[in-house]
């Protein structure tokens, strides 16, 4: 089979959901387990059509709990695997997302955010799952979450999510939203040869000497998958470096600290932001996803009106780009403006890093994104001090 079935190189008119699916397939994803949910269903639909073309499997599970479990099982079977959902399904997945973190299982979970809580606004936008993505499953663990703001970025960041998940051996989130997921734009899919894909680290030792959870220097243990002769035990219980359950404070200290630190110490490698007009900026808008699109226009208008405004657009919301925000606070930024479709989630993180500078949250509860005027008004207010 030629590669053109797998990577549909060329220019396309796709929505964000479809672009996520194409990004996954271009990354080598060959297993998708999911459950229909608005506004993420188009990802499942595209995967159901596309995966058989590339010798992959789409399976529709009985719920999101099962979908997440099946994704983990497929990943341990050696496949690159993904699921996609929205808030209510994301809630159900939390249990096995925790298992994925504990078992250090590479996979990608796409959440096309809609308005919540509960069934909320199935067909309308929300950005209120940011903290759930960070803290949703019980216990401590590091989290990586990417926030695309266009269909093109849905394609690009899904590939990046697969690469990060394989690199750090963990579930990685693509946190998009209903507006970006349902919006159609031009998406350029590059030829396969120019798409960089990463594979999980493999053991260098034979089964006799292999300790499946003994990390390399980078805190990531090599991964022996099913049927490779390593005969390992993988458990959601606290375990030692052999993978055997060990219910002690010492084992827990070593394991959980590493699950957090493997993301923390590599934050510089993981975090991506797009910066605009920060030179001499007194007000900085920090935005992501759909609200960054309105913010971009608001910042342009504010600058045309002579205000010293810059913008940081988050492509990675977890780990939070705290060093970047701290540096800006030190460099004389007077105020941060944070538009988001929730009652203040990323804004809290910005405030945490802002060293006492003003933080103005531009909140919408969900159902609609800010107009540029709303954000412009906030920028003007922040600039007045």
């Amino acid at each position, binding site marked *: 089979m*030629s590669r053109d079935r797998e990577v549909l190189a060329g220019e396309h008119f796709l929505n964000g959901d479809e672009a996520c699916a194409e990004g996954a397939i271009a990354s080598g994803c060959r297993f998708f387990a999911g459950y229909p949910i608005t506004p993420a269903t188009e990802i499942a639909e595209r995967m159901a059509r596309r995966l*058989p073309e590339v*010798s992959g499997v789409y399976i529709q599970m*009985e719920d999101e709990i099962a979908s997440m*479990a099946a994704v983990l*099982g497929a990943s341990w079977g050696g496949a*690159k695997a993904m699921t996609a959902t929205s808030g209510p399904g994301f809630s159900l997945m939390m249990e096995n997302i925790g298992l994925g973190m504990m078992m250090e299982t590479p996979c990608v979970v796409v959440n096309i955010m809609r308005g919540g809580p509960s069934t909320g606004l199935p067909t309308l936008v929300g950005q209120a799952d940011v903290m759930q993505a960070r803290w949703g499953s019980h216990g401590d663990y590091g989290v990586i979450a990417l926030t695309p703001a266009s269909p093109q970025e849905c394609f690009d960041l899904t590939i990046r999510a697969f690469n990060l998940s394989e690199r750090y051996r963990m579930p990685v989130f693509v946190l998009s939203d209903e507006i970006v997921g349902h919006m159609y734009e031009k998406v350029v899919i590059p030829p396969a040869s120019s798409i960089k894909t990463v594979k999980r680290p493999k053991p260098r030792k034979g089964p006799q000497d292999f*300790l499946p959870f003994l990390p390399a220097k980078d805190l990531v243990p090599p991964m022996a998958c099913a049927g490779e002769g390593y*005969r390992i035990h993988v458990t959601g219980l606290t375990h030692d470096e*052999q993978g055997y359950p060990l219910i002690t404070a010492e084992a827990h200290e070593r394991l959980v600290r590493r699950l957090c630190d493997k993301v923390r110490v590599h934050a510089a490698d993981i975090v991506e932001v797009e910066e605009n007009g920060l030179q001499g900026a007194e007000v900085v808008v920090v935005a992501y996803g759909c609200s960054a699109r309105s913010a971009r226009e608001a910042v342009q208008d504010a600058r045309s009106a002579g205000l010293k405004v810059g913008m940081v657009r988050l492509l990675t919301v977890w780990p939070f780009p705290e060093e970047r925000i701290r540096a800006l606070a030190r460099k004389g930024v007077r105020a941060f403006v944070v538009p988001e479709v929730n009652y203040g989630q990323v804004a809290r993180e910005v405030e945490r890093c802002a060293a006492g500078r003003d933080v103005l949250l531009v909140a919408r509860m969900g159902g609609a994104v800010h107009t540029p005027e709303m954000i412009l008004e906030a920028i003007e207010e922040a600039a007045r001090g």
Partner: protein
Amino acid sequence: MKIKLFEPEPFRPAEAREKIDKSHGLHPDDRYLKPGRIPHIWCSGCGLGIVLTAFIKAIDGLQIPIDRCAVVSGIGCTGRVAGYLNMDTYHTTHGRAIPFATGLKIARPDMEVVVFSGDGDLFAIGGNHFIHGARRNMDLTVLCVNNFNYGMTGGQSGPTTHMAARTTTTPYGNCEYPFNLTHLAFASGAVFVARWTTFHARYLIDSIKKAFRKPGFKFIEVVSPCPTGYGRPNRLGSGLDQMKVYRDRSEIRNRIDPIEAPLELSGPIVVGEFVDREKPTFLDRYREDVMSKVEKSRQSASPPPAQAGQESLSHEHAIVSQSR
């Protein structure tokens, strides 16, 4: 924020190795057990050791290569089986062994994937996954050790607890109807359904062997004593006393409709191989009904031939091919 951390004791591989060298390899079955994992955590009189041994004997009898086997379990006493077997083993979340195993089997269709779990795990919290795994006819062997209660948490009632039985959460006697697991498995689509007790070890070994040789969703219920959690409050005596009950009260009736297979606290216990039927598995159907259509449309569209020098990505990533 400043963080103050406390340095934990480091892992000492040499100590782990020493423990393994000291205790592993003395018993002939040790090659099927993970080095350094015995002694197990189960109570004396528990039936789990018998079921584990039966499983080992079945694999040994069929000479299935260990590296072609994977065991997936949920949570609970039976969930701990996975950790003792010397193969690729996955101890997952409560109730979710079947969907995890579904993903694993699809990614590795060449492997035998076995789900080993208890009645509470598979039929209360995991009940939905069980019926859907059976409906799809996922190629899995599901071994359910039914001890009628939640043993790990100290003997609470569950979906198979007999009417009027005492448990720590039914102090006045259980007022709920129990599942007949074999009937549920049959109705949901399982191709092979058997019930044995831990007294019927040889029958159990034979049924596990049969299940291994048969593609599709296979279900074996093993009725097991739990002297600590269920025996004591219901005055059922020791594990050995329960084995005597299984001997005296059980009746082998193969090929009956499982609806006619009672499993009572003080009445008859009907055991046997109830269901054995043929049906294409999920992956068979996926290949025949989905992949073949894609293949056909590809041929009719006559795509341009692959350019020389382009290695196939699909070959690298493919998880399902047209032919087995």
